[in-house]
Structures are given as structure tokens and as C-alpha cells.
């Protein structure tokens, strides 16, 4: 038996590797989008694929997001597995009609006869100093669209594992890539790449007994940091990484909240009408009598994404998370 070196890799590298391995494993996997070919994508996630697999397997499309997704629908109808890249979150909006009216519904419309195994990769979220339209968190739209799976990794290993599983899924998956984690590094064994929990399973990233931070994607590292800082204040916080918003893992989340009795949902997306409302509501429905305090939410403000120079005020940071934890009615305990 040989031991394989466990080397550090960035999330972007793990994603590239996932695409490459998926394309090698299955000739029906096709990557398409703006600048994904020669350039390798503006985040270089598709780097080298056009060279290795040819331009028909990794295709620079015309600049038209509805056209990209719409033609991907047709390709999927014919048995291909398109992996579509939307260049930035806000540039997925032109494709919403195709996404809502067709991608999410074709299987149901045809009673299972015409599944659409399409993966839509969307770099999302802020914190990268991007100008307007380059930092949106649009997961609320996807969550509210039945028929889509909505997946988002927070670790290097998950980036690989979840993307492989998304591409292999017979359901359409909106795969949200946290832009500011693209260059996050972790040691990772590329020989055991799929040994991650499947889509639909949340993972406890840190155990704790005082309260649960429920989070996903770009906010996972922030919550872990907050949990560290919370020690100083005497709180032992548990951090749950959802990994997929749809399907939602009620079991893992509720088990944690029932244990701790308190919860804060943390995400970058705007609070009002955002994922946190759904999460807080369903946790409360299921764990009401275990709750010592209402489930609180720490989210982006209900404003258009701010200019880069102000984004740090908008993004949920350690302090704001700790402030929320402090509001979890600890006095009642004493």
C-alpha cells in the first residue's frame, strides 16, 4: 500500500480537479459558459479543461446567460450533463426564466421522463472588494424554487466532493461557490476526494454546548472564528455547516439545537426574505420546547450590496455574531 501525500490545495483548485475528474469519468459531462475555455474562467476554475478535453467539451459560449442555460437544457434533454458557469451571481439573473420555468420543472412536467441533470455553478457572495453586481448572495431565489437542489461548500474537501456529487446527480443543482473562499487553503488528499457526506447532509464543524451557529458557505469560517472568540466570553458554541440549503438537513440541525437550546443563523444574504427566515422558522417549529430563546439571525442588511469600501459593515462579522449570541437571553438561565 502506498501512502499519498496530503497536500494543501485551494478551493478553486479542488473545484478544477472535480470538473476534470468528472469529465474524465463521464464523457457526457460538458462545461460551458463565458470565458470558461481559453481563459479558464475569470476565477480560473475551468483552467486547462479546454486544452485537455477540447473546445466542444469546455465551451466558450456567446455572452448570453439565458442562452447558455437554455441550450444546456436542450443538451441535457439529449443525454449530456452540462455544467454551466455563471460568471458572477448577479449575471445569473438573465437566466432566471430558463431556471425557474424549465430547469427546475422539466422532470416534474414530464413525470420523470425528461430529467435535466444540469449543474449551474454560481460564484456568489462578497468580501472580495468587487464593484456592484459582483457580490450578490442570491440563494434565497434558488431556495424558493422547487425542483432545484441548492448546494454550497465551505471547505476544500467539500468543494471537490459536493461538486462531483452535484454533477453526478440526476437533479438540477445550483452550486454556489463562495468567492471569498476560492483561495482558502486546506490540506486535502486528492486520492480520497469523495469521502465527504452526500448532498443533503449538514455537518457539525465544531461541537459546543452553549448555543448553535447555523451557517453555510462563506460564513462558516467566520462562525468558527466567532466560536473561538466566544470562548473568552465563556460560551461554548457549536457550528453547523449546512452544505446544502435544498435538501435541508433538519435532523442534524435540530439535533444540535435540541442539545444546546439556543441558535443563531448566520449568512451574508439579506435577512428579510432570506434563507435565515426559513431556517429559524423550521427549527422553531421542530424544537420549540427545547428553545431557551428565539432563534436569532445575523445576516446582511436588507439593502443592495454595498460598495466595496463599506462592505465590511454589511457582512456578518465576529462581533455581530457575538452580539447576537449575547442576546440569547442568558440571564433567564442564571
Amino acid at each position, binding site marked *: 500500500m502506498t501512502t499519498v501525500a496530503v497536500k494543501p490545495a485551494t478551493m478553486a483548485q479542488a473545484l478544477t480537479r472535480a470538473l476534470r475528474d468528472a469529465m474524465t469519468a463521464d464523457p457526457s459531462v460538458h462545461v460551458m459558459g463565458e470565458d470558461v475555455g481559453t481563459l479558464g474562467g475569470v476565477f480560473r476554475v475551468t483552467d486547462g479543461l479546454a486544452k485537455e478535453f477540447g473546445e466542444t467539451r469546455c465551451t466558450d459560449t456567446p455572452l448570453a446567460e439565458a442562452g447558455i442555460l437554455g441550450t444546456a437544457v*436542450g443538451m441535457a434533454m439529449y443525454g449530456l450533463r452540462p455544467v454551466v458557469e455563471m460568471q458572477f451571481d448577479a449575471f445569473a439573473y438573465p437566466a432566471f426564466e430558463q431556471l425557474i420555468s424549465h430547469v427546475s420543472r*422539466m*422532470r416534474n412536467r414530464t413525470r420523470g421522463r425528461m430529467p435535466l441533470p444540469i449543474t449551474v455553478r454560481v460564484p456568489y457572495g462578497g468580501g472580495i472588494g468587487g464593484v456592484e453586481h459582483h457580490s450578490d448572495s442570491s440563494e434565497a431565489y434558488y431556495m424558493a424554487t422547487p425542483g432545484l437542489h441548492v448546494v454550497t461548500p465551505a471547505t476544500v474537501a467539500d468543494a471537490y466532493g459536493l461538486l462531483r456529487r452535484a454533477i453526478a446527480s440526476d*437533479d438540477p443543482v445550483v452550486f454556489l461557490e463562495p468567492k471569498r473562499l476560492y483561495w482558502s487553503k486546506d490540506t486535502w488528499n486528492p486520492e480520497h476526494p469523495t469521502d465527504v457526506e452526500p448532498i443533503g447532509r449538514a455537518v457539525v464543524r465544531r461541537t459546543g454546548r452553549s448555543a448553535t451557529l447555523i451557517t453555510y458557505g462563506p460564513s462558516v469560517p467566520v462562525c468558527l472564528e466567532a466560536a473561538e472568540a466566544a470562548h473568552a466570553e465563556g460560551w461554548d458554541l457549536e457550528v453547523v455547516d449546512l452544505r446544502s440549503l435544498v435538501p*435541508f438537513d433538519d435532523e442534524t440541525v435540530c439535533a444540535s439545537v435540541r442539545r444546546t437550546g439556543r441558535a443563531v443563523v448566520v449568512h451574508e444574504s439579506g435577512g428579510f426574505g432570506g434563507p435565515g427566515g426559513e431556517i429559524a422558522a423550521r427549527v422553531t417549529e421542530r424544537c420549540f420546547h427545547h428553545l431557551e430563546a428565539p432563534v436569532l439571525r445575523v445576516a446582511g442588511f436588507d439593502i443592495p450590496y454595498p460598495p466595496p469600501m463599506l462592505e465590511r459593515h454589511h457582512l456578518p462579522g465576529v462581533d455581530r455574531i457575538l452580539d447576537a449570541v449575547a442576546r440569547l437571553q442568558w440571564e433567564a438561565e442564571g
Partner: protein
Amino acid sequence: MTVMEQRGAYRPSPPPAWQPRTDPTPLLPDERPYRVLGTETAAEADPELLRRLYTQLVRGRRYNAQATALTKQGRLAVYPSSTGQEACEVAAALALEERDWLFPSYRDTLAVIARGVDPVEALTLLRGDWHTGYDPYAHRVAPLSTPLATQLPHAVGLAHAARLKGDDVVALAMVGDGGTSEGDFHEALNFAAVWQAPVVFLVQNNGFAISVPLAKQTAAPSLAHKAVGYGMPGRLVDGNDAAAVHEVLAAAVRRAREGGGPTLVEAVTYRIDAHTNADDATRYRGDTEVDTWREHDPIVLLERELTHRGLLDEDFAGRVREDAEAMAADLRARMNRDPELDPMHLFDQVYAETTGQLREQRALLRAELEAEQQDQEGGPR
């Protein structure tokens, strides 16, 4: 010495990127709608083809009438009739080989059944039953598309995928004059041309998008002229001349099959009935207009030709009528039975891998249905 020569060194050069066009295909479409019936070319038309077209036209018209009658009887929720447009519907289906794909718009039930789909299954959506009644793979017919023009990129993607797989498959996509205004029309045609996908776009210009006349939809000389901007050939054809529509579509299909890329075909036709049974066409157009078009009826045009060539004997005409009546009778009979829908199916195909949420909701509905049943049976709830 001319002024230009005086200028010496710097002759105006085009920018380095500019290349003169070399493709011999004419840039502009036919100047007037192409006709076969009543012209000299008609003599060359294959009698068998003309008879097949005629059979289908008559059948189509009968189908429209029967379906409209079914809406009045409450057996169909809604029906968008294609009476007056049968030539386009039928020619589109007949221009394709069995292995090809059809991408219909919501008005194109006739093309769908002409491809071989069961006439009752084709009405599943419109009767309020499930969203698509037929298996798209059985006859290679995509679901009737309700959101306008959204099916066009699907056709392009499918044709492109087939070509990548080395399959000899052409896709024909149908859209209305109104649908050409949507962004998806533009994006689909552009992708098709850039990819040289084997796809044919058929625009049925029937003069209206519900109440909106063509003049409020476009200022172009014709819808076929839109082809120029994508670098594909555009053809303008009389949409009521079944032989002409068939010839033009068949040529476009052939071109696509041979690797020549996409074609845009505009068929000029007219919607004789209202937009759907729910629409009141008198609010936006007069009878005279409709009457003018009745004189240009696709069945009459073809009948004249068949008669002229002695192809419409009593025997054949009788068989055609009977075939249409039999289809209508069968439709009536089968549409008069209520379809049986199982509410539990609502959850079955939302996902390949269902979710916890849906399992909960499924259980809720099952409990409700059981309670309902018990109520009806008079048992205690």
C-alpha cells in the same frame, strides 16, 4: 494626380479585423413569400406528398374544430386553435425524419399529433390534466412550451448535442410572430449560428400576438429578415401553401443535416379563430380581414392544385374525410371520460432524489386524503 495620390503614403485601410464576406448564400430572404401551389413548380411536386399533406390538413382542421367543441363542453380547459395555420403545422411535422426532434409552441398541437403523438395525450396539458401528456422521447417531441420562445434554445442545445454525439438528428423549433420579440429568440438564433447547429426555426407569422398586430411587434421588412443579423439564411414563405412550406422546410432540414447550419423560416399565415376559446377577437380585428384570409385558405389552395392535377378523386376525398371523422369521434369518446389523477403523484417527480420536506408534505396530504375518504364513507374522522 488625384487627391488620393497626392496624399501619398497613407491610403485608407480597413481596420485589421475586417474581412470581406465570402459565403455565397444570399443575405436577404426572398422578396415576396415563396409559393408553390398555383405556380409552375407545382407540377413537380410529388403527388404522394401532396396527398399526405392534404390528408393531414383535413385531419388538422377537424381536430381544431373538435377540440374547440370540447372546450364548450367543459372537457378542455383551454384550446388555442390553429385553424388557418394547418399548412405550417402539418408541413413542419412532415419535413422531419422520424429520428429528428420537434420543439412545439403551445399552439402547435397539430404538428405534435402529425408527428405521431396520440391526439388525446397531446391535449393532456390543455384539459387541466398533467403538464405534459406524452413521452417526449417516444416521438421526439418536446413538451408544448407555454413560456414563449423559451423552447428555442432547447432546440439549439439538443441539435448541438446530437451533432457532438455524431447522430444525424435535426431539430425543428416553432415560434409565433410575437415570440420573435423575446430575448430568448435572439439568443437561440445566435447560439445556433455560432455553433452551426442543425436546427430550423419556423416562425408562424399569423398576424397577431393575442390582440397585438404585427405592426406593433416589429418594424422589420419581414421576420425572415432577422436571419441576416445572425448570419443564417432567411426564407419567406406563404404559410398557407402547404407545398411551399414543406419544400422550404425540407430544404432547410436538408441543409442542417448536411452541416450547413441553421435556417430561419417565416411562414406568413393567419389565425382564423380567436387566440383561444377564452379570447374575444372582435375586440381587436374586423370580419373583413378574416374573410380575406378565408379566401386564402390552406385547404382550398391545396384542393385546387389536387383537382387541377386530377389527384382528388371521390374515393381519396372520401377516405380523407372518413379518417378525419374517425379521429374526431375517437377524440370525443376518449375526452369524455374523466382522467384519473392521483394527488400523491404531485410529489413523485419533483426530484430524482426526494427531500425530507417533501416526504413530510406527502405524509400530510396522505393523511388528509384518508380523512376525506373516511368523511365520505361516513366513518368517524
